[in-house]
């Protein structure tokens, strides 16, 4: 079984992050928690742009980071793709060039054709020649999705991907993500503070509060026995915007 295993301690200033979890392939783990809990640091540790103080991260038998063994793969070698909250599309490149960026970086000769195929899959082929500043929020986030997936990551991380979108758009984009997650063969991590995202997309949930895991399980399990006051508040937010 190809599991994503993470066991990390990250120094953060206010409180350290100390988290341990594992995830099976083709599964989606939602990481939820209040602002400042450490979710983004965890994303950074997985992707490689936040330094891990102590711990290990493995994808299957591939060691991405192991402080004891002195292993720390650079970002570009980890194959951990991230969709950021504010998309971070390269402003000087067209949509097509943005989506082709990942494949081209690893030397793929048909990077452009590959990118065009992804634009098709997400229904945004018509945007190919536009620049990010010309796109609406929903369009930009779809392009960001295409860009990350086209790079064929083994771990797919979505960091609050819908938080900047309008309500109506959010539902649409979320539905598309659900569609593509269905055919994604790697591990997916979804960071969110919105219970609707969790319900729509996640197989399992990890709750982080003040840098520590406060509960782990399926959504049903957590709903049945919420472990903390925050989780109770989170669950009761279901259906409200």
């Amino acid at each position: 079984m190809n599991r994503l295993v993470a066991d990390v301690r990250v120094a953060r200033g206010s409180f350290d992050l100390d988290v341990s979890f594992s995830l099976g392939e083709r599964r989606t783990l939602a990481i939820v928690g209040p602002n400042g809990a450490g979710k983004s640091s965890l994303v950074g540790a997985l992707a490689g742009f936040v330094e891990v103080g102590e711990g290990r991260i493995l994808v299957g038998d591939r060691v991405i980071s192991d402080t004891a063994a002195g292993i720390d793969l650079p970002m570009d070698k980890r194959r951990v793709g991230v969709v950021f909250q504010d998309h971070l599309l390269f402003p000087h490149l067209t949509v097509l060039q943005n989506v082709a960026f990942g494949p081209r970086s690893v030397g793929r000769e048909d990077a452009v054709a590959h990118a065009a195929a992804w634009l098709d899959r997400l229904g945004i082929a018509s945007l190919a020649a536009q620049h990010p500043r010309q796109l609406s929020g929903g369009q930009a986030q779809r392009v960001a999705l295409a860009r990350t997936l086209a790079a064929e990551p083994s771990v797919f991380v979505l960091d609050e991907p819908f938080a900047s979108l309008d309500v109506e758009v959010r539902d649409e984009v979320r539905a598309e993500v659900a569609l593509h997650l269905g055919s994604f063969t790697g591990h997916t991590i979804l960071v969110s503070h919105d219970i609707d995202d969790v319900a729509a997309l996640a197989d399992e949930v990890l709750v982080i509060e003040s840098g520590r895991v406060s509960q782990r399980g399926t959504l049903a399990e957590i709903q049945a026995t919420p472990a903390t006051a925050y989780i109770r508040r989170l669950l009761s937010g279901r259906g409200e915007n």
Partner: protein
Amino acid sequence: MPPALWIPAGIALGLLVLPLLGLIIRAPWAQLPELLSRPTVLQALGLSVGTAGLTTVLSLLLGVPLAFVLASSVDWPAVPRRLMRALVTVPLVLPPVVGGVALLLLLGRRGLIGQPLDDWFGITIPFTTAAVVIAQTFVAMPFLVLSVEGALRASDRRFEIAAGTLGASRFTTFRRVTLPLIAPGIGAGALLCFTRALGEFGATITFAGSFPGVTQTLPIATYLELQRDPDAAIALSLVLIVVSIVVLVSLRDRWTAGLSS
């Protein structure tokens, strides 16, 4: 915008534009073709444009990396950080002649580095075209460094993180993301550098001297000409202005946009 601002703004505009108008009006238009076709004029022009171009290239090669170092100095402790910034800015506030004297003390025949160069390799720098480029680089490179550094500070470093997660190595990220994003800042810096180098006088004449075809750049030739034939000096001044305008106009808008960012 309060309408009263037009008064000082109008004066400022006048201060900038009227001297140029004066030059154009007083120019000896009838003699211009003859004055400008003199070999000394073409020589000085060629030397000025050539050295300024070399200076810009040198400043790009050395100054862009320095800009990166300067931009990363925000993480340093206070004393080294401020020292770094002061050192880069010094040529901007130094009177050019003083800069020329400093260069002589360093690279002149009896200079700290110049003397060993002369004793061991027989290389002397003053009175050569290389000296002109060095003098120009000393005064003009800081413009480029500060412009590029400004662009770096203003750019979002998270784009580089995004590029990394997409599989781009550090060098690929630098080449395909960082550089294009700061290109307007580099363009504006290069433009400032070129025009400053073109007009450089004090450091050049002190360090490199003045010899036609070798070190007598257009500003120096103009100054000398003013004492002998003011009409010729006006003609040379017009040439300098035209060259500057051509440079400004031939660059694309998005490069000069960097000047205002």
